[in-house]
């Protein structure tokens, strides 16, 4: 009796412990962020290392939100990330569909180009991009950021969408084409509805990446009116470099939309990547 118990119980216990360790590791930094953001200033240094302050306060959040710029930064990030998510997913779906369904001369080159675009430090194209966008009036603008972010994210999104399309049998389009549809109509009416989880996952991935981007947001947009959240937060942090409470509160606020969104779509990412792997 005890032998069977230890055979099934011990591995399961270890399994649970290991997972608990991972969860703790993943959440601890975020928990700490939250904890410090809720610690009142007077307790900050004295209770610096405690796991939870003896008194909590929402003052820091109030200060951050009242700071005239943050709602603006938030709104800018939302606009840029949503637009990028939509555009990049659309372009990537078309390209991913082409990779999945067609064999065509130059395909290897196109794939190669997309791969190379992921391989160099983006730092070296900051200046050239600036010089490209400035005469077009796209520097210091949200539109310029959307254009740049869409370009950056499309390659990986295209590979993601390709694997989602691979999971859908090719004869579905052919059936639709026999039934009187052009390939594009077949794509719209039959295939895309079936890739909704994939579209959501890809869109979420691009949204997250665009939301997190710092370098180009800093370099291309100098005026606060068109700064995104990361740039705004960094500026805030460097100005108030010792007010940890407010900095952490700003950090938590920066996390909320992206974290929530990601929690929703992460399931589809694994699902879609698995399905694609099985077929492709």
């Amino acid at each position: 009796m005890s032998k069977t118990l230890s055979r099934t119980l011990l591995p399961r216990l270890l399994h649970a412990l290991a997972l608990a360790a991972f969860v703790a590791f993943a959440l601890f930094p975020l928990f700490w962020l939250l904890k410090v953001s809720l610690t009142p200033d007077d307790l900050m240094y004295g209770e610096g290392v405690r796991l939870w302050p003896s008194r909590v306060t929402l003052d820091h959040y109030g200060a951050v939100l009242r700071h005239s710029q943050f709602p603006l930064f938030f709104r800018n990030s939302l606009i840029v990330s949503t637009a990028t998510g939509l555009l990049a997913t659309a372009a990537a779906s078309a390209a991913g569909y082409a990779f999945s369904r067609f064999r065509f001369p130059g395909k290897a080159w196109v794939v190669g180009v997309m791969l190379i675009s992921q391989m160099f430090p983006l730092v070296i194209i900051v200046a050239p991009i600036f010089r490209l966008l400035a005469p077009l009036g796209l520097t210091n603008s949200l539109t310029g950021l959307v254009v740049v972010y869409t370009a950056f994210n499309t390659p990986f999104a295209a590979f993601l969408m390709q694997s989602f399309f691979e999971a859908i049998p090719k004869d579905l389009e052919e059936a639709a084409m026999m039934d009187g549809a052009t390939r594009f109509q077949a794509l719209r009416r039959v295939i895309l509805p079936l890739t909704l989880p994939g579209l959501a996952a890809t869109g979420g991935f691009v949204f997250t990446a665009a939301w997190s981007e710092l370098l180009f947001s800093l370099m291309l947009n100098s005026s606060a009116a068109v700064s995104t959240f990361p740039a705004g937060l960094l500026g805030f942090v460097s100005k108030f470099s010792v007010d940890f409470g407010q900095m952490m509160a700003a950090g938590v606020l920066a996390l909320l939309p992206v974290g929530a969104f990601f929690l929703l779509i992460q399931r589809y990412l694994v699902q879609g990547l698995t399905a694609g792997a099985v077929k492709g």
Partner: protein
Amino acid sequence: MATITLSNVSKDYGGGPVLRGIDLEIREGEFVALMGPSGCGKSTLLRLIAGLEEPGGGQIRIDGRLVNDVAPKDRDLAMVFQSYALYPHMTVRENMSFALKQRRLPQAEITRAVEAAAAKLGLTTLLERKPKALSGGQRQRVAMGRAIVRQPKAFLFDEPLSNLDARLREQMRYEIRKLHRELGATSVYVTHDQVEAMTMADRIVALNDGAIQQVGGPQDLYDTPANLFVAGFLGSPPMNFLDATLAPDGALVVEGQTLARVPPPAGPRPAGLVPGAAVTLGLRPERLALTTPTDGVPARVDLVEPTGTGQVVHLALGAQRLKLFTMGGAAWRRATPWA
């Protein structure tokens, strides 16, 4: 219903020709089977007719009209796929209405057509279900319903029964054939199963290695095959092929035994049929019979497979092997070597 004509159609994917020099005329209302082993090009040929692929050369005509340049959606052909290709996110009714909606027919007409086709196939109770809630046989019917509802010029079938179990396959063979007789529809049916081809087709097109080997009625192909491929493909158990020598008196000698005789040729002797020539002798298993030790040719029994209807007897004649099929529930014992 339409005629389909193929003239010198060929297809090459870059790794060598998959189809060459295909000339075929399919008459109105005919049920033609494209039959052959995997890789022979039969599915490719079907897809060329459908318009899902472009021919490398040759012309494809439907009702006399050249359709090489016409997209599948404009050819007015319906296709039943091997995997059924039902739209998973639509109900049976929506699946069957899709093509008619594409044509922008009025809703009342669409409903009428769908319900009529559903009734014909026994799908009426399933109309609001989605494909994943259907069994294999039901899905197959929906695929056919989707094709019928369009009243196309012709039906194309791409091995539609391969994914069904044996019992269901038999039943669907009968139903497809019955449907064909009711609708009088021109049908092109791709299969690797010679039983399907034999039982369903008006004419069989035997394909191998990208070329047509023979075209004709099932019994014609069975009784007078044009070459070794057709002879060996039809029939179960398949025809026995034995290495024989042609004796001067016309006898065909296998392992020292005379098994058959070639009648003297009516006209000039065909090249290669000279005395002493090595030939291949084909014998249908059901044409052989077991007899008493004093008659016939001695052979050793290796294995007996009872099939219920009869027995398949595996024989060894010298170094060669052959099979014999006998219906007689011959009461006879194993391990009696016919020395």
